[in-house]
């Protein structure tokens, strides 16, 4: 994995919105004074009349998106994950989720890879919060290719969707001819027999790296990418757990309520399995470079490798 291409998924978001708007005239983009950071500024350049800057008022922005959706528009609401899902949670729940409106929420700068801005902006709770809203689709793409596919799938899906994007460049892991994205379906990226590593977002790249290292130790790790956290691919989660009998989850998110919890929800009902959850261990992040933070909190390839080894002891 020496010369792996790296692209931040927020870039993928900004670029794919432009492609989408070219073929779908219902698509409009809302932003809350973060167009440069969320990359919706690129969209604004191409489609100035279809980009609505709502100013620093995320709660109002969610309501405006809801209103636009009632008239047939497909609004993509863009801001940092922290504000989209945290500050405006109740607006998302009551003005978008409850009436099941066709609003797409792009939460960028999710997780600790926001980096230097520190814990106030590092949202490790977005997946948990969005999962609790009935009818909300929750997606966490692993790379550029998947992020773009998520944007397209969100536009096709009728109903509210949350998509999580990152600030930092991350390795492209889905660059293969047979890649096909299907909402609600996970992907088996590497077959194995000793342990299953189920990952999402940037955790997928780390899981693949860890699997490589584990192989050198004679441990056969299966790697599953779960992009759609909700509705989760129950079949695939159960199948891999049955196969290996040991499950590790990896996410750049709190271990409370995110992918790890979603996997446990499935397994506790259908295939009780011991699960080791790698993620933010009920802690706030801190300032630092994305790479330094990922390393410190054990979410890089080495960290996942070490945790899996410990788990298998």
């Amino acid at each position, binding site marked *: 994995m020496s010369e792996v291409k790296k692209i931040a998924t927020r870039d993928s978001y900004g670029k794919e919105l432009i492609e989408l708007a070219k073929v779908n005239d219902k698509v409009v983009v809302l932003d809350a004074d973060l167009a440069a950071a969320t990359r919706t500024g690129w969209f604004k350049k191409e489609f100035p009349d279809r980009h609505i800057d709502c100013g620093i*008022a995320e709660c*109002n922005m969610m309501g*405006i*998106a*809801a*209103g636009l959706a*009632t008239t047939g528009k497909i*609004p993509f609401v863009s801001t940092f994950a922290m504000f989209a899902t945290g500050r405006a949670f109740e607006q998302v729940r009551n*003005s978008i989720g409850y009436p099941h409106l066709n609003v797409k929420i792009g939460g960028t700068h999710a997780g600790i890879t926001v980096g230097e801005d520190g814990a106030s902006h590092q949202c490790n709770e977005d997946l948990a919060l969005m999962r609790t809203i009935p009818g909300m689709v929750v997606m966490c793409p692993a790379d550029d290719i998947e992020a773009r596919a998520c944007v397209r799938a969100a536009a096709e899906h009728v109903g509210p969707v949350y998509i999580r994007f990152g600030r930092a460049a991350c390795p492209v892991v889905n660059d293969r001819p047979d890649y096909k994205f299907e909402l609600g379906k996970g992907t088996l990226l590497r077959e194995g027999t000793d342990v299953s590593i189920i990952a999402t977002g940037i955790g997928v790249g780390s899981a693949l790296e860890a699997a490589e290292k584990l192989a050198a130790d004679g441990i056969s790790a299966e790697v599953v990418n779960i992009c759609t956290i909700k509705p989760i691919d129950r079949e695939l989660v159960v199948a891999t757990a049955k196969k290996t009998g040991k499950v590790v989850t990896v996410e750049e998110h709190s271990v409370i309520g995110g992918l790890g919890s979603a996997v446990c929800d499935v397994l506790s009902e259908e295939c009780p399995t011991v699960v080791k959850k790698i993620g933010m261990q009920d802690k706030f992040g801190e300032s630092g470079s994305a790479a330094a933070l990922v390393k410190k909190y054990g979410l890089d390839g080495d960290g996942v490798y070490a945790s899996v080894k410990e788990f298998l002891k």
Partner: protein
Amino acid sequence: MTNKELQKIANEVRKGIVTAVHAAGAGHPGGSLSAADIFTYLYFEEMNIDPKDPAKPDRDRFVLSKGHTAPGLYSVMAQRGYFPVEELTTLRKLGSRLQGHPSMQYLQGIDMSSGSLGQGISVACGMALSAKLDNKDYRTYTLLGDGEIEEGQVWEAAMFAGFRKLDNLVVIVDNNGLQIDGPVTEVCSPYPIDKKFEAFNFHVINVDAHDFDALRAAFKEARETKGQPTAIIAHSLKGKGVSFMEGQVSWHGVAPNDEQYAQAMEDLNKIGEALA
């Protein structure tokens, strides 16, 4: 419609409110009654709507931002023919289309689900913005409570509407002066309401909420106002029409018992007879 015709309908709307809340054993009669004339004017005179075709794309939109006064909305919709008046007694009951707060998922003709205060005005802004984006001429109306405007989101929305010059948007504040914890002047005063909206670049009209001539003039003025959204500050009496509820904080969110219900209907029947 003549003022007398509107007054008669408004009186029927008030009977529906009291009947529904009594049957439910819970609900919000005070703010429903204070807004009954506004509901009536909007649904019978002002808005371009068709109860037979509640989803027609070019209809005017209404968002009840003060969603707890759903009994008022339901009652006027029933009078207007969206559903049978008899259904009002299913309010808040299991299986009813008449949820405790309006839900567009349950009842056709509701343009937006609401109930959590401060959110409806934002949604109304989105509807009005959509009309602007598509060069459509439908108008959007939203009704807020005077307590509700203590919510910060209301002013986020007001800033947006003023900045975007949404002259196809009318914000009506039902200024009955009372909220759950007491008079608005004692809880966290929103006054001066008119000057606040003016500061947010609204065209502002103060009006007597129970005077149909005044309402007629205000909505006409709003229609003629270009380049600015309009805020109609409707000075109203909470509990209007029911003697023992008028001006009483305690009737914000309480249902009348059987005896009180009989008294309320007697009050409203007398008003109806005087109009006959």
